[in-house]
């Protein structure tokens, strides 16, 4: 009995979290190649193109998920209000950890230029970050890395789904849009007022998007 597309569909439908290729292959009474399972899964995922549900590789496993464009509707159904966004500080710290792991707190702080103990603690508590061990230097600082929950939280199959550092917007092409948020408008005005006195360097950004 081979693991048909239908069987895999049933398994993944019944599962409540990502199931890995290894786990799926193990369920088969006769030996199956993981590559064969993957191929069938990809075939199945293709069947779900254009449907309200997608089959996606998340955190090293496969999982049925609703599509992001229907989030609003699903939220109404399950009345989920609890999803708090991560702070900018937390995202920056995570970015450093993900791209530089294994990394120490000192290295993180060197890059961010600010104390990061609190943020790190929060990330550890939310399990987005894990301790990988200790660095073999004086003081044996703890090394941090990203966890499986990190992949799950951001809907990533694995770390290679992230853009490579060199593909991330080159430094000069503008800053994250988030900095154009409402909270920055006031300082922009303040600085602009000073700048105008200096010879009229204005800023061209449009109105900040409504919060």
């Amino acid at each position, binding site marked *: 009995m081979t693991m048909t597309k239908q069987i895999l569909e049933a398994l993944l439908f019944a599962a409540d979290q990502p199931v890995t290729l290894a786990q799926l292959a193990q369920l088969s009474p006769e030996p199956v190649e993981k590559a064969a399972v993957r191929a069938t899964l990809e075939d199945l995922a293709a069947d779900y193109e254009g449907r309200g549900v997608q089959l996606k590789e998340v955190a090293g496993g496969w999982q049925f998920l609703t599509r992001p464009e229907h989030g609003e509707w699903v939220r109404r159904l399950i009345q989920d209000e609890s999803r708090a966004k991560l702070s900018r500080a937390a995202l920056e710290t995570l970015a450093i950890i993900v791209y530089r792991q294994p990394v120490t707190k000192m290295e993180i702080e060197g890059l*961010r*230029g600010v104390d990061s103990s609190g943020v790190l603690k929060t990330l550890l508590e939310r399990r987005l970050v894990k301790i*990988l*061990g200790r660095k*073999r230097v004086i003081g044996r600082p703890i090394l941090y890395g990203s966890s499986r929950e990190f992949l799950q939280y*951001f809907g990533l199959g694995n770390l290679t789904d992230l853009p490579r550092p060199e593909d991330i917007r080159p430094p000069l092409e503008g800053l994250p849009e988030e900095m154009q948020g409402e909270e920055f408008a006031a300082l922009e005005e*303040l*600085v602009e007022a000073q700048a105008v006195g*200096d010879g009229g360097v204005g800023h061209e950004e449009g109105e900040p998007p409504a919060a």
Partner: protein
Amino acid sequence: MPYQVKLPVFDGPLDLLLHLIRVQEIDIYDIPIAQVTAQYLAYLELMQTLNLDVAGEWLVMAATLTYIKSRMLLPRSPEDEEIEDEEDPRRELLEKLLEYQRVKAMAEDLRERELEHREVYCRPPLDAPEDDEDIMLNVTLFDLLEAFTALVERLPEAEAQELVIEEMSVTEMIHTVVERLEGEGPIAFEALFEGATHRAEIVVTFLAILEMIRLKMILAQQRQPFGPIRVSLTVEEKQPA
């Protein structure tokens, strides 16, 4: 001039500097240090006026900026002119800013993914039969030591032969244990020592386990006193509901 300000929150000195550079469309590779320093200090003053907690790093940056400014003001001696690539005093700061800008871009990329994935839902768990795991006891150090002693005693008498022992550090062992636990899920304490042939390897594994418990990376639990000990990753323990 009375000025109503809703103070923006910057994550730190680098964040503020990048902001000043961006809104004024300054060339980051040629920062007018006097102008930026003045604006930076003005902001600091604002923070202090508002009784905001000005952490040390803000002051360090103020000192750095002032220092760079003073170095830029000093006339270069004729000898200096000859040395072509005399280092620009702004260089170190520039590198930090570029690096931080990159971090911000990465963070922004993560934010986009976060926002998208927040709109995605998976099925909640089925009503699976309750595992009676909540009555798991946390294992004490003595339980661990006892299990460890039992293991060492079971170690086969070493045959006399010359061996090249590949040494493994505790850190490396921690990685190994994490990998195994991630791959296989919770496993028996003894299983972690499978394949260990030397006393040294067993000791290193044990030290790794102790260290991991201390760092709260793993949990060691048993169902009843003196029962078999089961080791699981702390990360695995709580699945998002």
